[in-house]
């Protein structure tokens, strides 16, 4: 009795600590506008609240919980989870406020190329020209919003599935790192956050993964890390290729160069406007390939994709959701932000290479999907296939194709977490992922069946769901640039429908009125989704419908970004291409 009450006391104390933290953070955030009322638009809403805060909060939560005596840690699970969810909801509130323009007058659709909202720069490592530089435009904001949407939904969906007190804080850490990648306007900072995202994901897979989790975690880490190192090499080369400026040297920058993306973009643009090729043709091509390699592995594109199915199959639901939903988008985001912006000439040079990679990812990925026997593996390959569409949109070199590719990133970012959450629930409730080991589950688990059907349909590009807008816009662009090649992606639409419908037929349908459960499972163990899973899936379904029916909510800024990109960065180049053709 006394032990119980002392447990309770400890629990209450811990809870009060966390609650204080939450309330304090909330008060701090809310007090911002009070103190700076006249200059609310001037406040840096990114650095502290969206990047530093989640990272620090997760570290504090982890530290707090880990210092508890043995046996007491489990008591911390709930308050820590609640705090993590609360923090991520705070961040969601800020990013949504940014979108709706409640935090200062922000217009996302009138930005020119290399113009950013919330543009703030602080000196970091002055001697090397490294600064902490954040900003958002029509490309990065959708990704930021996506991150802030998906992380709390992931936390809700996997509320009960993954025990342990450091699961949710890791997701929070992940959120901070991902946001860091999307807001960074300094290459050094970009790279730091780029690699930081690996750490929480590595531990998520290692701790809560499946049977082969050690192998999968290592493969995931090493594979993407290797590619990132090549990318780093490209970044450093890029850094040293710039002319040292006396102005910077006078201000204590030893090398006279900076990692600032804004400066580099300016230089590239000025060169393009003069009709010359920035850094020279061969150097541009080499850098383009180096950077692209890093991003293509992350995307992933065939043939650099094999880490993805392994990582997904072994990863826990939360890991898969974040990995597919946001982490893959880092690759596509990086492509837009660096190689496509800086090296338009090389893009024109390698247009057909990208076309080939995109087509192969798309077609090959979908055919491999058809041959999978593991539900999660199938969904993982479908991600490869859909990311092929992003590459096609880029290869089309049309503003519409770019905007469609960005929309695909966003749409896939809300659809694929739902796919993986359904797979995760499947695994959670039926302890298997083999397609064909069950029949007629829709009867035992109507909600699981319903959400599976919905997300499968969303992924195969059903109109009025988010994926369709992306597909049709990209394919319009592909037709305009490559003509009849568009038949291949169109064929993939059939194959995609094929593997999704076939997998449903062999899992949730059939059974002649009886539910066929996997071997060794008792009939009374067949349960439907838990309330948490239900809420999470419902939220994702609503988002998919919302952005499918009213795509312009987010489309307009993407389209504006793509247009600006073409007007100011590629206009001269495209004249050149069109004239040559």
């Amino acid at each position, binding site marked *: 009795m006394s032990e119980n009450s002392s447990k309770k006391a400890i629990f209450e104390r811990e809870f009060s600590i966390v609650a204080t933290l939450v309330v304090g953070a909330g008060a701090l955030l809310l007090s911002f506008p009070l103190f700076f009322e006249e200059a609310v638009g001037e406040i840096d809403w990114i650095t502290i609240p969206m990047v530093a805060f989640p990272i620090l909060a997760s570290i504090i939560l982890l530290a707090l919980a880990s210092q508890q005596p043995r046996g007491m840690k489990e008591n911390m699970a709930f308050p820590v989870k609640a705090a993590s969810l609360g923090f991520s909801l705070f961040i969601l509130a800020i990013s949504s406020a940014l979108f709706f323009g409640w935090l200062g007058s922000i217009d996302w659709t009138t930005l020119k190329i290399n113009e950013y909202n919330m543009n703030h720069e602080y000196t970091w490592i002055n001697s090397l020209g490294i600064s902490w530089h954040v900003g958002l435009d029509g490309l990065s904001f959708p990704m930021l919003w996506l991150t802030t949407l998906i992380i709390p939904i992931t936390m809700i969906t996997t509320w009960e599935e993954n025990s342990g007190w450091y699961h949710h804080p890791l997701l929070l850490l992940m959120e901070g790192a991902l946001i860091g990648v999307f807001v960074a306007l300094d290459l050094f900072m970009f790279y730091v956050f780029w690699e930081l995202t690996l750490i929480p994901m590595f531990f998520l897979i290692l701790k809560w993964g499946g049977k082969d989790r050690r192998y999968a975690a290592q493969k995931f880490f090493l594979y993407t890390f290797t590619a990132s190192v090549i990318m780093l090499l490209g970044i450093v080369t890029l850094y040293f290729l710039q002319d040292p400026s006396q102005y910077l040297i006078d201000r204590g920058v030893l090398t006279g160069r900076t990692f600032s993306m804004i400066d580099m973009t300016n230089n590239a643009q000025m060169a393009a406007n003069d009709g010359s090729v920035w850094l020279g043709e061969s150097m541009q091509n080499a850098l383009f390939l180096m950077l692209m390699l890093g991003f293509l592995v992350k995307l992933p594109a065939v043939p650099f994709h094999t880490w993805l199915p392994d990582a997904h199959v072994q990863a826990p639901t939360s890991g898969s959701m974040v990995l597919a939903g946001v982490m893959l988008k880092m690759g596509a985001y990086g492509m837009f932000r660096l190689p496509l912006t800086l090296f338009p000439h090389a893009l024109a040079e390698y247009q057909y290479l990208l076309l080939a990679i995109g087509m192969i990812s798309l077609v090959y990925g979908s055919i491999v999907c058809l041959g999978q026997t593991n539900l999660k593996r199938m969904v993982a390959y479908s991600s490869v296939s859909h990311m092929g569409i992003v590459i096609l949109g880029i290869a089309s070199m049309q503003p519409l194709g770019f905007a469609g590719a960005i929309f695909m990133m966003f749409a896939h970012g809300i659809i694929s977490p739902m796919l993986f959450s359904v797979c995760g629930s499947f695994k959670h409730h039926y302890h298997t992922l083999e397609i064909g080991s069950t029949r007629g589950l829709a009867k035992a688990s109507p909600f699981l069946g319903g959400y599976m059907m919905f997300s499968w*349909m969303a992924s195969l590009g059903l109109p009025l769901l988010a994926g*369709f807008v992306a597909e049709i816009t990209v394919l319009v662009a592909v*037709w305009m640039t490559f003509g009849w090649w568009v038949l291949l992606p169109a064929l993939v639409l059939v194959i995609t429908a094929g593997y999704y*419908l076939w997998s449903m037929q062999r899992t949730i349908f*059939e059974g002649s009125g009886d539910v066929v459960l996997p071997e060794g499972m008792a009939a009374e163990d067949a349960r439907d989704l838990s309330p948490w899973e239900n809420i999470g899936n419902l939220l994702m379904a609503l988002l998919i419908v919302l952005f499918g029916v009213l795509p312009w909510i987010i*489309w307009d800024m993407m389209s504006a970004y793509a247009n600006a990109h073409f007007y100011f960065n590629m206009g001269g180049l*495209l004249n050149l291409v*069109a004239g040559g053709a």
Partner: protein
Amino acid sequence: MEASELAILIPVLPILAMPVILFLGQLFNGNAKWKGFWKEGGTIATAVMAIVFLLSLWLIVGHVSAFSEGNGDDVVTDVGNWVSYQLFTEHGDMKVQELGFGMQLDHVSVMLLFVASFLCLLICIFSLGYMNTDEVNENRNHRFYGEFVLFCAGMFGMVLADNFLWLFIFWEIMGLCSYLLIGFYYERPSASYAAKKAFLTTRVGDIFLFVGLLIMHAEFGSWDFAVVFNAANIGAADAGLIKAMLLLMFIGAVGKSAQFPLHVWLPDAMEGPTPVSALIHAATMVNAGLYLVARMFPFFAAPAMAGELGDVALLIAMIGGITAFMAAAIAFVQKDIKKVLAYSTMSQLAYIFTGLGAALWFVNNGHDELAFFAFGASMFHLFNHAMAKGMLFMASGSVIHEMHHAHHHLEQSEDGHDEDDDHHFDAQDMDNMGGLASRMPITAIAMAAGSASIIGIPLIGGFWSKEGIVGSAWKAVMYDGGGLFIIPAILVLLTAGMTGFYMSRMWFMTFAGKPKTEVAANVEETTPFIPIPLVTLTFMTLGGILFAGLNFAGWLGENSTHLSLSHAPSHLWHEITHAFLALGSDGQMDPFILIITWTTILLSMVIGPFYAMSLYGGKLAKGQKAHWSIAWIITLSGRIHSTYKFDNSIWAESGLSTALRNRLYFDQWYDSLMLKIVVPFSYAAAWFDRRIIDGVIKGIETGSQEASRNIRSLTTGSARDYIMMAALGTLALFLLIWGVA
């Protein structure tokens, strides 16, 4: 308030009703009141459908009266912008594009809107009786009604859309709903298989349509009807690409309307509940393909395309002719009452394709008046067929439902247990029926009227339009360059007789003769709600003469074709002389068409039914009396049956008959294509991915491990080796510096 302001509600109301019904169903399943008054969502669905029907009527009346007042413009409403973007043209400049949703009404869409909203309402009422009285459906009717209203919304949206993108979007929504509804009994492997097949087969067509739309966008920079149908814009486009676009769009229509060679899904779609069959086959989905082809008319009519697209039109007619003939032949040997109707649907839709093909050919070759006539006849046939087939499916549903109940009843009274073993008894097999005319008078009369319309018995609905289609196909043969139309023309002519046979066969096998099983002798027509749509549609079908008299066909052709034709106002007598005496608008008799007309009538009305009577006719059992309106047919059939005996065993046992029973092996071919080529190929690809691509990565992995193990062997742990290495290293360094210096 204008009707067009509320028109957006026609697709939106049902879409909003769907989640409401599904949600309430999840909440209240098992509740007595939800089952009783609310019919598990059926009441909501019916109310929504009624509102939508009234709105449609309002809209239609407004359109018709505006048109008759000389204000002939299409009603167009712009609802809003969806996405906007910019495009690079070949010349390096940017164009701003906007994709909006708007609504447009012309005669064809008005007709289809009426067909869809009217039939959807009736089918919904029918479902209240059919679905809610069957225990199998208990606690899941809400799913039926939810998917049902979404399906209807898809059809309304497709008909109203003013651009091809939204047409495609709603087209796909219908595809989804047909998947969901065919697979309503998802636990049955056959239903699950059929649903998948329907979705995939139509999807194959859909992607061609999709690519066609991409071409359209590239050529016109827009999907709006107003832009795309503009003759000047068509003139500016690349003729070759326009042709490719039309062909691709036609493949989409072929998939949706179940034409050869993408027809395999439709017979299997019978796995869905009967109201779904009525919905898919009559009211909505299959008409979508026809609607799409009808929408292609302006391309063929454009002066820039004159004479260019004749072969596309011929292909459309050809596919129509082949499908009509093939489906009718397969219908000869079907035992399942719904399968007969399914093949009949394919065959009749193929008629419409033939008619449209002729219309498109005429207009492309400058024979505007003939085009106008063929187009109107095709659209009128669509209307007649939808009404008749909707009724036939509901009537067959009524038969199946009552057979089922009678069987259930017998089982209970005999064995004393209510175990539901349907495996031994097929309530859809016509071999188990017979003599139902006296037991189910309303159904029997309805089915007789529907069959008569499909066969084309003079003066009833389908007659007027079918004559027009057959006549148009033959007329095309006579014109220069239309010689190949002889193939579809002969095929549709033959099919007319075959239709007479198989429709009569179905009716006589079901309703005439003596009951072939005990179940059939105990059938009672008692289910509520079912007679309402049957009676309504019987009058609708028999009233075909009124529509014909109002020159409905001519009206349909009038503004959809955008032809400015001055034709004399028509009246019934004119129509009759036109149909029976082949009097042209100039009052001249065309002897050739006269022969064709009377051949068709002879084949379809006399020869076909005659054979069916002699083989399947028969008097009712003693003491059973049919309604007077159909009693004489049964008496006649009994007389013919006993007088003329035909031995058809040569045919019945021939290889042809086996092939027909196996649906000409199309399903086997497609299945083996999937199972023997596509699936093994995908497994091979999966193997390739795991072993080769990932194998290389694993090779690098093990290779580097190996290498590191080899390097590790250098660290021997012995101080002597390290000193040695340090010395060698220092030497090397010195050599290097020396060399450089």
